[in-house]
Protein backbone atom coordinates (compact mmCIF):
# COMPACT_ATOMS: atom_id res chain seq x y z
CA UNK A 1 0.00 0.00 0.00
CA UNK A 2 2.74 2.40 1.11
CA UNK A 3 4.71 1.35 -1.91
CA UNK A 4 1.80 2.00 -4.25
CA UNK A 5 1.41 5.54 -2.96
CA UNK A 6 5.13 6.13 -3.47
CA UNK A 7 4.96 4.60 -6.94
CA UNK A 8 2.15 6.89 -8.09
CA UNK A 9 3.63 9.90 -6.36
CA UNK A 10 6.96 9.30 -8.03
CA UNK A 11 5.30 8.83 -11.43
CA UNK A 12 3.24 12.01 -11.11
CA UNK A 13 6.24 14.05 -9.95
CA UNK A 14 8.40 12.58 -12.70
CA UNK A 15 5.92 13.57 -15.42
CA UNK A 16 5.57 17.04 -13.88
CA UNK A 17 9.34 17.39 -13.77
CA UNK A 18 9.61 16.37 -17.42
CA UNK A 19 6.97 18.91 -18.40
CA UNK A 20 8.70 21.64 -16.42
CA UNK A 21 12.14 20.82 -17.83
CA UNK A 22 11.16 20.56 -21.48
CA UNK A 23 8.19 22.92 -21.82
CA UNK A 24 7.87 25.34 -18.95
CA UNK A 25 11.35 26.45 -17.96
CA UNK A 26 13.06 28.98 -20.27
CA UNK A 27 16.29 27.92 -21.96
CA UNK A 28 19.40 29.32 -20.33
CA UNK A 29 20.95 32.18 -22.33
CA UNK A 30 24.64 31.34 -22.65
CA UNK A 31 24.57 27.56 -22.50
CA UNK A 32 21.42 26.94 -24.50
CA UNK A 33 19.55 23.65 -24.57
CA UNK A 34 22.48 21.75 -23.02
CA UNK A 35 21.68 23.41 -19.75
CA UNK A 36 18.56 21.30 -19.32
CA UNK A 37 20.68 18.30 -18.28
CA UNK A 38 21.38 20.33 -15.14
CA UNK A 39 17.91 19.33 -13.88
CA UNK A 40 18.95 15.70 -14.08
CA UNK A 41 22.53 16.12 -12.92
CA UNK A 42 21.77 17.90 -9.64
CA UNK A 43 19.24 15.29 -8.38
CA UNK A 44 21.71 12.54 -9.27
CA UNK A 45 24.50 14.27 -7.35
CA UNK A 46 22.22 14.85 -4.38
CA UNK A 47 21.04 11.24 -4.33
CA UNK A 48 24.57 9.86 -4.56
CA UNK A 49 25.22 11.70 -1.29
CA UNK A 50 21.89 10.86 0.35
CA UNK A 51 22.39 7.16 -0.44
CA UNK A 52 25.82 7.23 1.15
CA UNK A 53 24.38 8.94 4.23
CA UNK A 54 21.88 6.08 4.56
CA UNK A 55 24.73 3.59 4.03
CA UNK A 56 26.62 5.34 6.84
CA UNK A 57 23.68 5.30 9.24
CA UNK A 58 22.82 1.68 8.39
CA UNK A 59 26.46 0.66 8.84
CA UNK A 60 26.79 2.23 12.28
CA UNK A 61 23.52 0.67 13.45
CA UNK A 62 24.62 -2.72 12.10
CA UNK A 63 27.95 -2.61 13.92
CA UNK A 64 26.30 -1.48 17.15
CA UNK A 65 23.17 -3.63 17.15
CA UNK A 66 24.28 -6.59 15.02
CA UNK A 67 20.84 -6.94 13.45
CA UNK A 68 20.89 -7.97 9.82
CA UNK A 69 18.07 -5.56 8.90
CA UNK A 70 20.48 -2.64 9.24
CA UNK A 71 22.95 -4.33 6.94
CA UNK A 72 20.15 -4.93 4.45
CA UNK A 73 19.26 -1.24 4.60
CA UNK A 74 22.88 -0.13 4.05
CA UNK A 75 23.44 -2.65 1.25
CA UNK A 76 20.22 -1.68 -0.56
CA UNK A 77 21.02 2.00 -0.28
CA UNK A 78 24.51 1.38 -1.67
CA UNK A 79 23.00 -0.44 -4.65
CA UNK A 80 20.77 2.51 -5.45
CA UNK A 81 23.61 4.87 -4.66
CA UNK A 82 26.10 3.44 -7.12
CA UNK A 83 23.51 3.77 -9.90
CA UNK A 84 22.84 7.41 -9.03
CA UNK A 85 26.57 8.13 -8.73
CA UNK A 86 27.23 6.54 -12.12
CA UNK A 87 24.45 8.66 -13.63
CA UNK A 88 25.81 11.78 -11.90
CA UNK A 89 29.20 11.14 -13.51
CA UNK A 90 27.67 10.47 -16.93
CA UNK A 91 25.38 13.51 -16.91
CA UNK A 92 28.28 15.58 -15.58
CA UNK A 93 30.45 14.49 -18.49
CA UNK A 94 27.67 15.14 -21.02
CA UNK A 95 27.23 18.63 -19.56
CA UNK A 96 30.99 19.32 -19.50
CA UNK A 97 31.54 18.43 -23.16
CA UNK A 98 29.64 21.35 -24.78
CA UNK A 99 30.30 23.79 -21.92
CA UNK A 100 34.03 23.23 -21.38
CA UNK A 101 34.85 21.39 -24.62
CA UNK A 102 36.04 18.26 -22.82
CA UNK A 103 34.28 15.27 -21.32
CA UNK A 104 36.29 15.40 -18.17
CA UNK A 105 37.79 18.52 -16.64
CA UNK A 106 38.88 17.36 -13.14
CA UNK A 107 36.41 19.84 -11.80
CA UNK A 108 36.23 19.54 -7.97
CA UNK A 109 32.70 18.24 -7.79
CA UNK A 110 33.20 15.73 -10.61
CA UNK A 111 36.46 14.60 -9.03
CA UNK A 112 34.91 14.07 -5.60
CA UNK A 113 32.00 12.23 -7.21
CA UNK A 114 34.50 9.96 -8.95
CA UNK A 115 36.21 9.17 -5.63
CA UNK A 116 32.76 8.58 -4.10
CA UNK A 117 32.03 6.14 -6.93
CA UNK A 118 35.31 4.33 -6.19
CA UNK A 119 34.30 4.12 -2.53
CA UNK A 120 30.99 2.52 -3.52
CA UNK A 121 32.94 0.01 -5.61
CA UNK A 122 35.18 -0.78 -2.64
CA UNK A 123 32.03 -1.26 -0.53
CA UNK A 124 30.73 -3.96 -2.89
CA UNK A 125 34.11 -5.58 -3.42
CA UNK A 126 34.89 -6.22 0.26
CA UNK A 127 31.42 -7.69 0.64
CA UNK A 128 31.83 -10.14 -2.19
CA UNK A 129 35.44 -11.00 -1.41
CA UNK A 130 34.88 -11.79 2.27
CA UNK A 131 35.16 -15.42 3.27
CA UNK A 132 31.77 -15.52 5.02
CA UNK A 133 28.62 -13.55 4.47
CA UNK A 134 28.39 -12.07 7.97
CA UNK A 135 32.00 -11.03 7.78
CA UNK A 136 31.38 -9.34 4.44
CA UNK A 137 28.58 -7.36 6.04
CA UNK A 138 30.87 -6.19 8.85
CA UNK A 139 33.65 -5.26 6.45
CA UNK A 140 31.27 -3.39 4.18
CA UNK A 141 29.95 -1.50 7.20
CA UNK A 142 33.50 -0.46 8.08
CA UNK A 143 34.02 0.83 4.52
CA UNK A 144 30.65 2.61 4.67
CA UNK A 145 31.60 4.44 7.86
CA UNK A 146 35.18 5.31 6.94
CA UNK A 147 34.13 6.35 3.42
CA UNK A 148 31.40 8.67 4.59
CA UNK A 149 33.63 10.39 7.14
CA UNK A 150 36.22 10.82 4.40
CA UNK A 151 33.77 12.62 2.06
CA UNK A 152 34.05 16.17 3.48
CA UNK A 153 37.85 15.90 3.44
CA UNK A 154 37.73 14.73 -0.20
CA UNK A 155 35.52 17.66 -1.16
CA UNK A 156 37.76 20.09 0.71
CA UNK A 157 40.97 18.77 -0.86
CA UNK A 158 39.63 18.59 -4.42
CA UNK A 159 38.11 22.08 -4.15
CA UNK A 160 41.35 23.56 -2.92
CA UNK A 161 43.25 21.55 -5.54
CA UNK A 162 41.30 22.90 -8.51
CA UNK A 163 40.72 26.63 -8.30
CA UNK A 164 38.11 26.67 -11.08
CA UNK A 165 34.85 26.28 -9.30
CA UNK A 166 31.40 27.05 -10.72
CA UNK A 167 30.00 29.25 -7.97
CA UNK A 168 27.23 27.69 -5.92
CA UNK A 169 24.64 30.02 -7.46
CA UNK A 170 21.70 27.82 -6.56
CA UNK A 171 21.58 28.87 -2.93
CA UNK A 172 22.55 32.48 -3.44
CA UNK A 173 19.43 33.43 -5.35
CA UNK A 174 21.32 33.49 -8.64
CA UNK A 175 18.88 31.05 -10.19
CA UNK A 176 15.69 32.38 -11.78
CA UNK A 177 12.54 31.41 -9.76
CA UNK A 178 11.17 29.27 -12.60
CA UNK A 179 14.46 27.38 -12.76
CA UNK A 180 14.55 26.91 -9.01
CA UNK A 181 11.01 25.49 -8.98
CA UNK A 182 11.88 23.08 -11.80
CA UNK A 183 15.02 21.99 -10.02
CA UNK A 184 13.26 21.42 -6.71
CA UNK A 185 10.44 19.40 -8.34
CA UNK A 186 13.02 17.32 -10.18
CA UNK A 187 14.98 16.70 -6.98
CA UNK A 188 11.79 15.71 -5.14
CA UNK A 189 10.73 13.36 -7.95
CA UNK A 190 14.04 11.50 -7.91
CA UNK A 191 14.20 11.45 -4.11
CA UNK A 192 10.77 9.79 -3.98
CA UNK A 193 11.99 7.33 -6.60
CA UNK A 194 15.05 6.60 -4.47
CA UNK A 195 12.92 5.79 -1.43
CA UNK A 196 10.67 3.61 -3.56
CA UNK A 197 13.68 1.67 -4.86
CA UNK A 198 15.10 1.44 -1.36
CA UNK A 199 11.90 0.04 0.18
CA UNK A 200 11.49 -2.37 -2.73
CA UNK A 201 15.07 -3.63 -2.41
CA UNK A 202 14.95 -3.92 1.38
CA UNK A 203 11.81 -6.04 1.32
CA UNK A 204 13.26 -8.23 -1.43
CA UNK A 205 16.48 -8.80 0.51
CA UNK A 206 14.56 -9.55 3.70
CA UNK A 207 12.52 -12.14 1.81
CA UNK A 208 15.70 -13.64 0.42
CA UNK A 209 17.15 -13.91 3.92
CA UNK A 210 13.93 -15.49 5.17
CA UNK A 211 13.93 -18.08 2.37
CA UNK A 212 17.55 -18.90 3.10
CA UNK A 213 16.76 -19.34 6.77
CA UNK A 214 13.85 -21.67 5.98
CA UNK A 215 16.03 -23.68 3.61
CA UNK A 216 18.64 -24.21 6.31
CA UNK A 217 15.90 -25.24 8.75
CA UNK A 218 14.56 -27.82 6.31
CA UNK A 219 17.86 -29.39 5.33
Amino acid at each position, binding site marked *: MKRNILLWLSLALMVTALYLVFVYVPTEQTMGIVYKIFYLMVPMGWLSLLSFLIVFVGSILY*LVKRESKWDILAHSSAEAGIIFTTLALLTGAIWAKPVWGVWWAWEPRLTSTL*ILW*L*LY*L*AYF*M*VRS*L*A*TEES*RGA*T*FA*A*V*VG*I*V*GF*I*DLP*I*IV*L*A*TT*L*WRGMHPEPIIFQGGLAPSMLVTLLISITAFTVLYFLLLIQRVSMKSDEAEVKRLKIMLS
Partner: protein
Amino acid sequence: MRFWHKVIAITWKDALSGMRTKEIIFSVLVFTLLVIVIFNFAFGTSQEMMELVAPGILWVTFAFAGVLSLNRSFIPEKEQDCLEGLMACPASREVIYVGKMLGSLLFMLIIEVIALLIFAFLFNLPVFSPQIITITVLTTIGFVAVGTLFSALAVNTKAREMVLPILFLPIVAPIIISAIKASELALSGEPWSGLSSWLQIIGAFDVIFLIVSFLIFAFVIEE
Protein backbone atom coordinates in the same frame (compact mmCIF):
# COMPACT_ATOMS: atom_id res chain seq x y z
CA MET B 1 50.47 3.03 31.62
CA ARG B 2 49.70 -0.64 31.13
CA PHE B 3 48.19 0.28 27.76
CA TRP B 4 51.39 1.77 26.38
CA HIS B 5 53.47 -0.99 27.87
CA LYS B 6 51.52 -3.56 25.83
CA VAL B 7 51.49 -1.34 22.75
CA ILE B 8 55.26 -1.06 22.80
CA ALA B 9 55.59 -4.81 23.22
CA ILE B 10 53.63 -5.35 19.98
CA THR B 11 55.51 -2.63 18.11
CA TRP B 12 58.80 -4.06 19.33
CA LYS B 13 57.78 -7.56 18.18
CA ASP B 14 57.08 -6.19 14.69
CA ALA B 15 60.29 -4.19 14.57
CA LEU B 16 62.28 -7.20 15.68
CA SER B 17 60.75 -9.58 13.15
CA GLY B 18 61.25 -6.94 10.47
CA MET B 19 64.91 -6.60 11.35
CA ARG B 20 65.49 -10.33 11.63
CA THR B 21 63.92 -11.32 8.35
CA LYS B 22 65.10 -8.27 6.40
CA GLU B 23 63.40 -9.61 3.25
CA ILE B 24 60.40 -7.28 3.49
CA ILE B 25 62.30 -4.08 4.07
CA PHE B 26 64.76 -5.04 1.37
CA SER B 27 62.10 -5.84 -1.23
CA VAL B 28 60.14 -2.65 -0.49
CA LEU B 29 63.35 -0.66 -0.92
CA VAL B 30 64.19 -2.29 -4.24
CA PHE B 31 60.60 -1.67 -5.35
CA THR B 32 60.86 1.99 -4.36
CA LEU B 33 64.09 2.41 -6.29
CA LEU B 34 62.53 0.76 -9.34
CA VAL B 35 59.47 3.03 -9.26
CA ILE B 36 61.68 6.12 -9.12
CA VAL B 37 63.85 4.86 -11.99
CA ILE B 38 60.84 3.95 -14.16
CA PHE B 39 59.29 7.39 -13.62
CA ASN B 40 62.55 8.89 -14.74
CA PHE B 41 62.17 7.07 -18.05
CA ALA B 42 58.65 8.41 -18.38
CA PHE B 43 59.45 12.06 -17.79
CA GLY B 44 62.99 12.51 -19.15
CA THR B 45 65.89 13.97 -17.28
CA SER B 46 65.80 17.76 -17.63
CA GLN B 47 66.00 19.63 -14.32
CA GLU B 48 62.98 21.86 -15.01
CA MET B 49 60.82 18.86 -15.84
CA MET B 50 61.99 17.13 -12.68
CA GLU B 51 61.05 20.05 -10.47
CA LEU B 52 57.59 19.93 -12.03
CA VAL B 53 56.92 16.21 -11.64
CA ALA B 54 59.04 15.36 -8.57
CA PRO B 55 56.26 15.83 -5.97
CA GLY B 56 53.98 13.55 -7.96
CA ILE B 57 56.66 10.88 -8.33
CA LEU B 58 57.50 11.13 -4.65
CA TRP B 59 53.93 10.56 -3.49
CA VAL B 60 53.04 7.86 -5.99
CA THR B 61 56.16 6.05 -4.81
CA PHE B 62 55.22 6.48 -1.16
CA ALA B 63 51.62 5.42 -1.74
CA PHE B 64 52.70 2.25 -3.56
CA ALA B 65 55.39 1.48 -1.01
CA GLY B 66 52.75 2.08 1.66
CA VAL B 67 50.37 -0.46 0.11
CA LEU B 68 53.18 -3.01 -0.10
CA SER B 69 54.38 -2.58 3.46
CA LEU B 70 50.90 -2.31 4.99
CA ASN B 71 49.98 -5.57 3.30
CA ARG B 72 52.96 -7.14 5.01
CA SER B 73 51.71 -5.89 8.36
CA PHE B 74 49.06 -8.60 8.71
CA ILE B 75 49.74 -11.23 6.05
CA PRO B 76 52.66 -12.89 7.92
CA GLU B 77 50.55 -12.90 11.09
CA LYS B 78 47.79 -14.71 9.26
CA GLU B 79 50.07 -17.18 7.49
CA GLN B 80 51.69 -18.39 10.70
CA ASP B 81 48.41 -18.20 12.65
CA CYS B 82 50.06 -15.58 14.84
CA LEU B 83 46.96 -13.42 14.68
CA GLU B 84 45.06 -15.94 16.80
CA GLY B 85 47.92 -15.87 19.27
CA LEU B 86 47.93 -12.10 19.30
CA MET B 87 44.20 -12.00 19.93
CA ALA B 88 44.46 -14.56 22.72
CA CYS B 89 46.90 -12.24 24.49
CA PRO B 90 45.55 -10.35 27.47
CA ALA B 91 45.52 -7.18 25.37
CA SER B 92 42.51 -5.31 24.07
CA ARG B 93 41.88 -4.93 20.32
CA GLU B 94 42.74 -1.26 20.66
CA VAL B 95 46.18 -2.16 21.98
CA ILE B 96 46.71 -4.40 18.95
CA TYR B 97 45.65 -1.57 16.63
CA VAL B 98 47.97 1.01 18.15
CA GLY B 99 50.86 -1.44 18.36
CA LYS B 100 50.53 -2.57 14.76
CA MET B 101 49.99 1.02 13.61
CA LEU B 102 53.18 2.23 15.28
CA GLY B 103 55.06 -0.74 13.83
CA SER B 104 53.92 0.18 10.33
CA LEU B 105 54.69 3.85 10.95
CA LEU B 106 58.24 3.02 11.98
CA PHE B 107 58.67 0.73 9.00
CA MET B 108 57.33 3.26 6.50
CA LEU B 109 59.37 6.13 7.90
CA ILE B 110 62.57 4.10 7.49
CA ILE B 111 61.61 3.33 3.87
CA GLU B 112 60.80 6.99 3.24
CA VAL B 113 64.07 8.30 4.66
CA ILE B 114 66.00 6.01 2.33
CA ALA B 115 63.69 6.89 -0.60
CA LEU B 116 64.24 10.59 0.05
CA LEU B 117 68.01 9.98 0.06
CA ILE B 118 67.71 8.24 -3.33
CA PHE B 119 65.57 11.14 -4.51
CA ALA B 120 68.01 13.80 -3.42
CA PHE B 121 70.84 11.84 -5.03
CA LEU B 122 69.17 11.10 -8.38
CA PHE B 123 67.16 14.27 -8.95
CA ASN B 124 69.33 16.88 -7.27
CA LEU B 125 66.42 18.30 -5.26
CA PRO B 126 66.45 19.76 -1.73
CA VAL B 127 64.07 17.17 -0.26
CA PHE B 128 65.58 17.18 3.23
CA SER B 129 63.98 20.46 4.23
CA PRO B 130 61.96 20.72 7.47
CA GLN B 131 58.85 21.35 5.35
CA ILE B 132 59.14 18.17 3.26
CA ILE B 133 59.93 16.14 6.38
CA THR B 134 56.86 17.51 8.18
CA ILE B 135 54.62 16.77 5.20
CA THR B 136 56.04 13.26 4.93
CA VAL B 137 55.61 12.44 8.61
CA LEU B 138 52.06 13.84 8.79
CA THR B 139 50.90 12.08 5.62
CA THR B 140 52.50 8.81 6.69
CA ILE B 141 50.58 8.95 9.97
CA GLY B 142 47.39 9.27 7.90
CA PHE B 143 48.48 6.35 5.70
CA VAL B 144 49.09 3.99 8.61
CA ALA B 145 46.00 5.15 10.55
CA VAL B 146 43.62 3.86 7.86
CA GLY B 147 46.12 1.41 6.38
CA THR B 148 46.34 -0.69 9.54
CA LEU B 149 42.56 -0.93 9.75
CA PHE B 150 42.22 -1.96 6.09
CA SER B 151 45.21 -4.27 6.21
CA ALA B 152 43.54 -6.22 9.03
CA LEU B 153 40.34 -6.26 6.98
CA ALA B 154 42.01 -7.30 3.72
CA VAL B 155 43.84 -10.22 5.29
CA ASN B 156 40.49 -11.85 6.06
CA THR B 157 39.25 -11.73 2.46
CA LYS B 158 39.78 -14.07 -0.45
CA ALA B 159 42.04 -11.80 -2.50
CA ARG B 160 44.26 -10.41 0.26
CA GLU B 161 46.84 -8.37 -1.60
CA MET B 162 44.29 -6.99 -4.06
CA VAL B 163 41.78 -5.72 -1.52
CA LEU B 164 44.05 -3.31 0.35
CA PRO B 165 44.85 -0.94 -2.55
CA ILE B 166 41.19 -0.88 -3.65
CA LEU B 167 40.15 0.30 -0.19
CA PHE B 168 43.20 2.28 0.77
CA LEU B 169 43.80 4.47 -2.29
CA PRO B 170 40.36 6.16 -2.59
CA ILE B 171 40.28 6.84 1.16
CA VAL B 172 43.73 8.44 1.23
CA ALA B 173 43.11 10.35 -2.01
CA PRO B 174 42.55 13.68 -0.20
CA ILE B 175 45.82 13.47 1.72
CA ILE B 176 47.72 12.35 -1.38
CA ILE B 177 46.40 15.43 -3.18
CA SER B 178 47.34 17.62 -0.21
CA ALA B 179 50.79 16.07 0.18
CA ILE B 180 51.58 16.51 -3.52
CA LYS B 181 50.42 20.13 -3.50
CA ALA B 182 52.26 20.94 -0.29
CA SER B 183 55.49 19.29 -1.52
CA GLU B 184 55.22 21.20 -4.77
CA LEU B 185 54.96 24.48 -2.87
CA ALA B 186 57.74 23.49 -0.47
CA LEU B 187 60.11 22.60 -3.32
CA SER B 188 59.45 25.94 -5.00
CA GLY B 189 60.53 27.73 -1.82
CA GLU B 190 57.13 28.73 -0.44
CA PRO B 191 57.18 29.71 3.29
CA TRP B 192 55.23 27.76 5.93
CA SER B 193 52.22 30.05 5.70
CA GLY B 194 51.70 29.04 2.07
CA LEU B 195 51.49 25.38 3.04
CA SER B 196 49.24 25.79 6.04
CA SER B 197 45.88 25.01 4.41
CA TRP B 198 47.27 21.75 2.97
CA LEU B 199 48.92 20.78 6.24
CA GLN B 200 45.63 21.45 8.02
CA ILE B 201 43.79 19.03 5.73
CA ILE B 202 46.41 16.34 6.36
CA GLY B 203 46.38 17.03 10.10
CA ALA B 204 42.59 16.87 10.28
CA PHE B 205 42.61 13.60 8.33
CA ASP B 206 45.18 12.13 10.75
CA VAL B 207 43.25 13.05 13.87
CA ILE B 208 39.87 11.94 12.49
CA PHE B 209 41.06 8.60 11.19
CA LEU B 210 43.25 7.76 14.17
CA ILE B 211 40.11 8.06 16.30
CA VAL B 212 37.72 6.34 13.86
CA SER B 213 40.10 3.44 13.14
CA PHE B 214 40.85 3.05 16.84
CA LEU B 215 37.13 2.76 17.55
CA ILE B 216 36.17 0.32 14.80
CA PHE B 217 39.29 -1.85 14.60
CA ALA B 218 37.79 -4.40 17.00
CA PHE B 219 34.99 -5.19 14.52
CA VAL B 220 37.47 -6.02 11.79
CA ILE B 221 39.55 -8.65 13.52
CA GLU B 222 36.99 -10.31 15.76
CA GLU B 223 36.52 -13.98 14.96
